[in-house]
C-alpha cells in the first residue's frame, strides 16, 4: 500500500468540479481536507439526508463546517456564487438537485476563478454540466481483508485538462491521509496475482 499522488487530485483550485455516485459525500469530505478548511456546505432545506458531524470527525473538525440551508436551487447557486467569488472559504460544496444549465455552470466557474476558491457540486448521476472542470464518480467498495475500511473506487469521467482514469483509494483515519491501493484481486500475495 504505497502513496501515489492521484493526477487531478487534490482538485484544481479556482475551478468548479463535480462528483456523483453513492460515495460522493466521502469524496467531498476528502477533497475538502486536501484543499483546506473551513468548508461551506450549501444544501436545500427540504433535503432529508443530513450530514452527521460526528461522521466528519475522521476527516476534519466538524466546527470547520459551515452550513447554509436554502429555499431553492436558485438560492443555493446564488449563495455558492457569492462564496466562491469572495474566496474567504477555500472550499464550497453545493448539493445540486436539478441539472445546471450552461449559464449557471459558467457563472459558478467564473466566480471560482475570481475568488480562487474550489467548488464541488454533488450531482445526481447523469446530471453533469458542461462547464465542470472534472467530474468524478465515487462508489464504496467492499474490502474483504480490512475491517472498518473506507475503500472506495474513484473514477474520473470527465477531465478538461488531463486524462481519465480509475483508482481504488482508502482514507486513513489516524494520519488523515489518502492511500491509493491496487485493486483487491491484484494485490501482492493474493491468489491470482500475475507474475
Amino acid at each position, binding site marked *: 500500500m504505497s502513496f501515489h499522488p492521484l493526477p487531478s487530485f487534490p482538485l484544481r483550485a479556482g475551478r468548479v468540479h463535480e462528483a456523483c455516485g453513492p460515495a460522493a*459525500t466521502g469524496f467531498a469530505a476528502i477533497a475538502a481536507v486536501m484543499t483546506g478548511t473551513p468548508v461551506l456546505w450549501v444544501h436545500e432545506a427540504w433535503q432529508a439526508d443530513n450530514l452527521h458531524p460526528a461522521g466528519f*470527525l475522521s476527516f476534519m473538525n466538524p466546527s470547520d463546517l459551515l452550513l447554509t440551508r436554502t429555499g431553492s436551487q436558485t438560492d443555493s447557486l446564488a449563495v455558492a456564487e457569492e462564496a466562491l467569488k469572495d474566496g474567504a472559504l477555500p472550499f464550497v460544496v453545493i448539493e445540486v438537485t436539478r441539472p445546471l444549465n450552461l449559464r449557471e455552470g459558467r457563472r459558478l466557474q467564473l466566480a471560482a476563478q475570481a475568488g480562487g476558491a474550489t467548488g464541488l457540486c454533488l450531482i445526481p448521476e447523469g446530471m453533469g454540466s458542461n462547464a465542470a472542470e472534472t467530474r468524478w464518480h465515487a462508489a464504496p467498495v467492499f474490502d474483504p481483508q480490512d475491517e472498518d475500511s473506507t475503500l472506495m473506487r474513484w473514477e474520473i469521467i470527465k477531465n478538461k485538462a488531463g486524462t481519465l482514469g480509475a483508482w481504488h483509494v482508502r482514507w486513513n483515519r489516524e494520519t488523515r491521509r489518502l492511500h491509493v491501493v491496487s485493486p483487491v484481486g491484484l494485490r501482492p500475495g493474493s491468489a491470482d496475482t500475475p507474475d
Partner: protein
Amino acid sequence: MWFPRLASDRVLRTRPIEAPFALTLRQSNTERIHCLNARAEALGLHRAMSLADARAFCPDLVSRPAEPGRDARFLLALGRWAQRYCPWVGREGADGLVLDVTGSTHLWGGEEAMLEDMRARLARAGLELRLGLADTRGAAWALAHFGTGIAPVGQTRRALAPLPVAALRLDEAICTGLQRLGLRTVADLCTTPRAPLARRFGPALLARLDQALGDVAEAISPEADPPHFGLRLTFPDPIGLVSDVMAATARLLEPLCARLKAQGVGARRLELTLRRVDQGSQQVELRLAAAMRDAVRILPLFERGVAEVDAGFGIDQIRLEATLVEPLPVEQIGAIQARGAPDRLADLITRIGTRIGLENVQRYLPADSHIPERSFLIAPAAYSTPEGGWCSPRPRPLRLFPPEAIAGSGPQPPERFRWRRMSFATARATGPERIAPEWWLEDDNWRSGMRDYWRVETRQGRRLWLFYTPQDPGWFVQGEFA
C-alpha cells in the same frame, strides 16, 4: 411624586373597567394581588392577598396578570414627561419619581401652583397621585406616602414630627422594633438619645433620619439618556438613482460609525428608511453577522437591499438607524490585522444572510448525548462561536437520515435486504452497539425502545448503519458511512 396604583392605573387607562379590579402576580405558586383599584380596596381587599381569597370576598372582581416590565417602562415614560417641570428627574423605587425642583417653581407660579398643575394633568391621565414637597428627598418621600402637602423651607422638622416612623423609609423589622420601644412618631425619635438607638438598630436608622432632616446629603440621580444611533438626511430635490442613494448612505454611515465608536459599540442590525415624495417609505434592513462599525465595510453590504427599492417619484429623505447594537471594544490595530480572515468570513456570512436569512447560515456545535440525532446542535453561525470537544468513540456515518424500515427478523443483521429499491447482501456486520433512549426526554422516535446499531458492509460496496429494536422487533437503516 408617588403613584400608589401605578400598575392597575396603567391597565385601566387603556380599558376602563367600572368594577373592582386587581392585577395578579404569581409568587411561590400562588396568584397574589399585585395592585388593585380603589373600589377593590373599599371592599376589603389588600395587596399580597391570594386571588382565591379575593374572589371569595368579592365574586365580581376583574383580574388580569401583572406585567412588571411594562410598568417599569411606563414609569420611565412618566419620568420623561416630568421633565417638563424640571430637568432633574430620578426614579424612586418601582412606583415613584423624585424631582429636584429647586429654582424651577417660579416658572409655574410657585410651589402650590406647580403641584396643582401636576395633580390636574395626572388626574386627567387617570393616574392616582400623591405629592410631597420638602427641602430633602427623604422628607418629600415621607410627605408623599404619609400625608400629602408641602413642607415650607426650613420647616422640615416640624412637618415630619407627627408622621409615623415608617415615613423614614425604614424596613419592616426596624419599624416593629421602634414601636415596641414606644417610639411611634418621628418626633419621638428625634428626642431620643442617638447612641443607644445606633447600638440597638444599627447605622441605617440614624442615616435615614439624618437624610430626611437634611443633616446628610442625598443626591438625586437622573436617568441617563440612552445613546441614540439614528441619523437622517433630507434632500432639496428627490433622488432616484442607486448610486445617489448609496452616496447618501455613505454620508450617513460615516457619522453613525463615529458615534458607535465613541460609545464602544458595534451595529448588529441597521435599518435604512427611504421616504419618497409621495409620503410612502421603504425600509432596507441589514443584519450583520458580527458587530461592526467600519463604514467602508458596511456600505457594500447595503448594495443588494438598496437595488431592490422602488424609488417611485423620488426619495427626498433617508434615515439610517442602528436598531441593534452590541458592545465592541476598541482593539489594537495589530490585533485586527492578525484576525483578518474572521472579518472576511463575517462579511461573507452577512452577504449570504441578506439573501437567505442570517439564521440559515449555520454551524454544528457538539452536544452531550449518546443519541446520534442529539449528539450535535445546529446553531446560526452569526450568533455562536465554534466549540471544540467533539468526540466519537466509534466511527459514525457521514450521512444520517430518518430511520427507513427494511425487512428483517431476529437480532442478527439480515443476510439479504432491500433498501431504497436496491438489493444488498451483507458481507460483514460489526456490532452490536446498544444505545438506550434518554428516558428523561420525550422523543417519539425512540418510543420503540433501545436500539442495537450495526455497521453493515455490503457486497455491493455500500456501508450502512442499521439498527435493530429488540423491544419492538424491526430493522431500520439510519445512515451511510463514507
